[in-house]
């Protein structure tokens, strides 16, 4: 500011910064790589590093854990297990009063693949990971339940036996008289949808550095937590400390959040315990497998939806029965996604009568958590698929059905039956604008032409009300009225911001929004610059937060698109306080009343006579240097904090109505897709998205949020799903298995805007960063349904699913077929199978002898550290194996049976380790071939645990490589180095080994 050349310029009329595409103040830092993320920040000397052992089973009792070998390794400081955690912490508080205790490590049983079982703390991460492989856990496998429909059956295995059921909460809600409406109408349209588990998976995983300071019993924690701070008391109570003894510091830069970084909290507690036990700071950086397997997922949800419909397409009532799958534990604020949209379950429609049944289901999957959209993608998938079905079943145009039912223009603020107070909007104008400016008529022509040419082309629509800034009382809707009365009313959403002016007139801002890339600093700069007549790039925003130094509330954080209607408002209020103060100080010098003072170009001046001016920095200096000169009664210094919570965010009422959000934007989308008849691939030909987000504060950032939200929407529609096999093995543990959309899958959408400012927030801004996450998946699904004439469309629409909708099923991959002569793998488990031949230049008898010689086997089994004969023809070995990123140590058991010397033998047994469990058998046949031997083998194996998360092709390839490696070494052992003839040349092996990260 002081150095700004604009200071010498003549004062200008006040400049408007809001609404302009101001380039981001964050970018110069990030573009040069100097925006430091949590793992990049300095830590105290002596900081230790943690690595976590995770469960390979979906459901098992922990019988014993032997950490002695791991603890004895060089560099290992401590190994903690569930019993340590149980001794040092209390279970996490949960939203329901149900016996579902959970700690930061599993105690007596594991309930999902990837659940943390033990933590090793060592001098560095490499040493910690080495030691993880040396922990021995004895499990007793229990039947797992994965499918939520199976979980709600009476005889299903129980995830939490003390609850007595897998449904710890069920509530029924009725608004108006839906039964009557359903009995009156011409037709009832029904549909069941099944929304998949997915997550936006930020590219930076969780990072925690915990430093216990024994003097005052303070846990000083640096972590990339994103709020809301409703879990701060959950953590401090678990740690049995005061709130102020748990100091949470969050960084200025975070590598994406999307809700997911809320669920870091169990690890915060775990590392706090590790630091207290070791009296040293402990750092943990989550890896990608850990993130995909064990961070969180948006809940998969089954919704039975029904609409009562008149012949003309008017929907008079809705019924929803929701079965929402929370996985193995209910981590606060779960089951948020089931209630976050509660007030607005009628969507964009003026339906008055509705019933809702909410069932919360537990299964042996990763716990569910916060993900962008937060229940919206699930419910809009049901509502908008249902509207499309209404059109199809009544023979009407889908857009006509949408229009007929939209909330009428002119009825805002509009109270929806379940309680949402929709602040503003004009849905008719919005849809008309999108139809006209997006080129719907042209798109319809294109569809007709494509269809006439025999191609599969469809158009989909979606209308979505986009809620923003959650009412912190929404989750209390889950408990009945009487219980709510006892607990006291909950509502609101408190925001804080501080504006500070230093003695040279530089303005700095701090705020409680914990951004993860949304450009909050830029918008705060615009808001403050506009109030104080400065340039946004001269305002310094520090987006770090520290619970010991900054004001915070339970609502602090970055979620529910709250920024532009909460923290931004608090910043505006704080800037106005500063402006008033400076106006009063300046009015003394300018000799005009304070109301006549204006700000611009770094000067403070008389509104009617801009030449009568004083430098901004000079006025600010007065407050610092000459408090005695300030107007009578004015507080010295110049730093203002403002807090804000909108009065419209009332607690739920006795009729279970809840205004779940402060603002409600409108999104109307349509798209044209073409389905490839041969491959089943879905190509998005055109996508139009119209947004009413109220007043737009920065169009550049606004469009960026829409593009990003749309990009994830495309991923949800076409690619992304966390897949489990029926036995609970997790199959999506790498980015080669959990597919994120790339620049080749995400087209450029046409973005259109209209602005109906919110009357409830001083800036008039509503949310816009989550709408496409709700609208895009169902819009694409509706287009595919239209292209194929399909009814039951399940996401993601992978080519094989689309082919199935077209009535064709894909053949299963060859390698997964069991080999005939061996026992088939158990149904539900991940299987790998194969066969092969090799010729070796020694006689069958020599090969046979080698197979029974422990010393030779020890030298030839790849990665074998140790091998003992435990019984005749039965071995136990300790081996290191790896596939891609999944590498680890296993205990192997192998028994030789069905012996037919020297012609054939069956090898059976398994591998067991932190990475998973493999059980299988192989038949090996030896036949003389010239002077040598032809070896034929076939094998079947079932794989569970972490290793199952690796894609099938990778696993099959790696298995083959290992078998070849074994025989190659065996031959080298017998012949003194001759290479085998047969499939696979050495160079090919090397290449594949390298490609798989298996370099020896």
């Amino acid at each position, binding site marked *: 500011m002081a150095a700004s050349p604009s200071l010498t310029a003549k004062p200008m009329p006040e400049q408007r910064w809001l609404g302009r595409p101001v*380039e*981001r103040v*964050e*970018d*110069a*830092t*990030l*573009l*040069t*790589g*100097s*925006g*430091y*993320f949590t*793992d*990049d920040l300095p830590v105290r000397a002596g900081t230790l590093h943690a690595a976590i052992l995770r469960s390979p089973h979906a459901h098992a009792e922990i019988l014993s854990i032997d950490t002695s070998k791991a603890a004895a390794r060089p560099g290992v400081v401590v190994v903690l297990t569930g019993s340590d955690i149980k001794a040092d912490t209390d279970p996490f508080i949960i939203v329901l009063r149900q016996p579902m205790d959970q700690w930061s490590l599993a105690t007596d049983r594991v309930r999902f693949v990837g659940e943390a079982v033990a933590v090793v703390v060592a001098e560095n991460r*490499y040493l910690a990971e080495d030691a993880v492989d040396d922990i021995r856990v004895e499990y007793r496998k229990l039947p797992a339940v994965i499918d939520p429909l199976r979980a709600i059956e009476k005889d299903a295995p129980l995830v939490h036996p003390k609850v007595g059921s897998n449904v710890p909460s069920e509530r029924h809600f009725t608004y108006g008289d839906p039964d009557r409406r359903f009995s009156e109408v011409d037709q009832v349209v029904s549909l069941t949808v099944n929304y998949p588990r997915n997550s*936006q*998976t*930020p*590219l*930076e995983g969780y990072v925690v550095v915990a430093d216990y300071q024994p003097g005052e019993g303070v846990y000083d924690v640096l972590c990339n937590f994103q709020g809301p701070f409703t879990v701060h008391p959950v953590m401090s109570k678990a740690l049995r400390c005061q709130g102020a003894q748990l100091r949470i510091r969050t960084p200025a*830069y*975070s*590598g*994406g*959040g*999307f809700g997911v970084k809320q669920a870091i909290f169990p690890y915060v507690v775990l590392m706090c315990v590790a630091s207290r036990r070791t009296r040293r700071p402990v750092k943990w950086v989550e*890896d*990608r497998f850990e993130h995909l397997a064990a961070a969180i997922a948006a809940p998969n949800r089954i919704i039975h939806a029904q609409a009562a419909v008149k012949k003309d397409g008017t929907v008079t009532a809705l019924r929803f029965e929701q079965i929402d799958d929370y996985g193995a534990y209910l981590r606060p604020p779960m089951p948020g996604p089931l209630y976050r949209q509660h007030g607005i379950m009628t969507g964009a429609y003026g339906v008055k009568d509705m019933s809702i049944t909410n069932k919360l289901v537990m299964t042996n999957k990763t716990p569910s958590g916060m993900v962008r959209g937060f229940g919206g993608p699930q419910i809009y998938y049901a509502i908008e698929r249902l509207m499309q079905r209404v059109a199809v079943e009544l023979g009407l145009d889908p857009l006509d059905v949408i229009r007929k039912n939209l909330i009428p223009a002119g009825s805002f603020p509009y109270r929806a039956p379940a309680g949402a107070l929709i602040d503003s909007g004009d849905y008719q104008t919005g849809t008309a604008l999108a139809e006209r400016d997006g080129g719907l008529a042209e798109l319809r022509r294109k569809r007709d032409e494509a269809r006439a040419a025999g191609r599969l082309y469809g158009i989909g629509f979606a209308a979505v009300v986009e809620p923003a800034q959650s009412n912190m009382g929404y989750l209390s809707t889950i408990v009945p009225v009487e219980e709510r009365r006892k607990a006291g009313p909950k509502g609101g959403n408190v925001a804080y911001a501080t504006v500070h002016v230093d003695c040279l007139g530089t303005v700095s801002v701090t705020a409680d929004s914990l951004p*993860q*890339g*949304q*450009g909050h600093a830029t918008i705060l700069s615009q808001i403050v610059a506009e109030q104080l007549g400065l340039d946004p790039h001269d305002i310094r925003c520090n987006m770090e937060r520290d619970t010991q130094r900054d004001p915070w509330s339970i609502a602090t954080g970055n979620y529910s698109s709250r920024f532009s209607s909460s923290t931004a408002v608090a910043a505006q209020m704080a800037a106005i306080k500063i402006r008033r103060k400076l106006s009063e100080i300046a009015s003394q010098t300018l000799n005009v009343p304070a109301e006549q003072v204006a700000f611009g170009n770094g000067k403070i001046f008389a509104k009617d006579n801009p030449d009568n001016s004083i430098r901004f920095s000079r006025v600010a200096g007065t407050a610092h240097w000459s408090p005695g000169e300030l107007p009578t009664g004015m507080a010295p210094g110049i730093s203002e904090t403002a807090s804000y919570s909108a009065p419209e965010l009332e607690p739920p009422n006795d009729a279970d109505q809840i205004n779940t959000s402060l603002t409600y934007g409108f999104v109307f989308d349509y798209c044209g897709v073409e389905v490839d008849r041969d491959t089943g691939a879905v190509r998005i030909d055109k996508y139009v998205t119209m947004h009413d987000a109220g007043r737009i504060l920065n169009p*550049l*950032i606004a*469009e*960026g949020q829409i*593009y*990003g*939200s*749309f*990009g*994830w929407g*495309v991923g949800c529609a076409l690619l992304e799903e966390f897949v489990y096999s029926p036995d609970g093995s997790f199959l999506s543990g*790498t*980015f*080669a298995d959990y597919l*994120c959309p*790339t*620049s*080749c899958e*995400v087209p*450029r959408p046409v973005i259109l805007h209209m602005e109906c400012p919110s009357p409830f927030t001083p800036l008039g801004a509503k949310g816009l960063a989550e709408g496409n996450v709700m609208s895009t998946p169902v819009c694409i699904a509706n287009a595919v349904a239209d292209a194929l004439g399909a009814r039951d469309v399940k996401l993601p629409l992978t080519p094989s699913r689309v082919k199935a909708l077209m009535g064709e099923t894909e053949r299963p991959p060859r390698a997964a077929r069991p080999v005939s002569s061996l026992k088939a793998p158990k149904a539900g488990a991940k299987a790998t199978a194969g066969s092969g031949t090799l010729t070796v230049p020694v006689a069958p008898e020599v090969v046979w002898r080698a197979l029974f010689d422990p010393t030779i086997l020890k030298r030839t089994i790849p990665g074998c550290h140790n091998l003992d004969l435990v019984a005749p023809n039965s071995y136990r070995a300790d081996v290191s194996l790896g596939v*891609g*990123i999944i590498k680890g140590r296993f205990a192997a058991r192998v028994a030789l049976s069905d012996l037919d010397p020297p012609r054939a033998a069956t090898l059976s047994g398994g591998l067991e380790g932190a990475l998973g469990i493999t059980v299988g058998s192989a038949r090996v046949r030896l036949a003389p071939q010239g002077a040598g031997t032809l070896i034929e083998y076939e094998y079947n194996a079932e794989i569970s645990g972490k290793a199952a998360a690796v894609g099938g092709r990778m696993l099959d390839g790696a298995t083959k490589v290992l078998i070849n490696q074994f025989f190659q070494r065996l031959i080298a052992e017998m012949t003194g180095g001759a290479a085998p003839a047969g499939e696979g040349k050495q160079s090919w092996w090397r290449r594949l080994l390298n490609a798989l*990260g298996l370099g020896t």
Partner: protein
Amino acid sequence: MLELKEGQRHPITMTLDGQEVRGLTEPRMLLSDFLRQELGRPEVHVGCEHGVCGVCTVLIDGKPARSCLTFAVQAAGRRVDTIRSLADKDGKLNDLQSAFRRHHALQCGYCTPGILLSAEAFLRENARPSEQEVREMLSGHICRCTGYVGMVDAILETAQQRASAGTP
């Protein structure tokens, strides 16, 4: 030729952003970890450690490479360039970085260094790329925030400006 021993730290040298640097590394240490932990270069980010996301991309002898799939010892004696090689020493953004800012091609910025390096290497070999070619190059990277639109525009605009200025 360096003879490597498990568990031992070996001295290696490389030319990092134009300067010769030395460090000690175990044979198993990844180049990404070596740059971050041994050479104090946290601007090399890590996203998946299995070669899919592209976050950790650096240039090795001018070619984009996943530093998470490269052992530090493999980069011994070679030229390694990171995001620091783009802006000038006062931190002034180069034309591509400025275009990223103008087109709002980044949000959280975690994937950005790797993408900028791939894009620079790509533009050196493709002076007048089509949008499809830019998209295919970018498909080696995952960005979860932006939907890629701003990046595509920034790269195309930079290509056009460099072509018309005659400085590919």
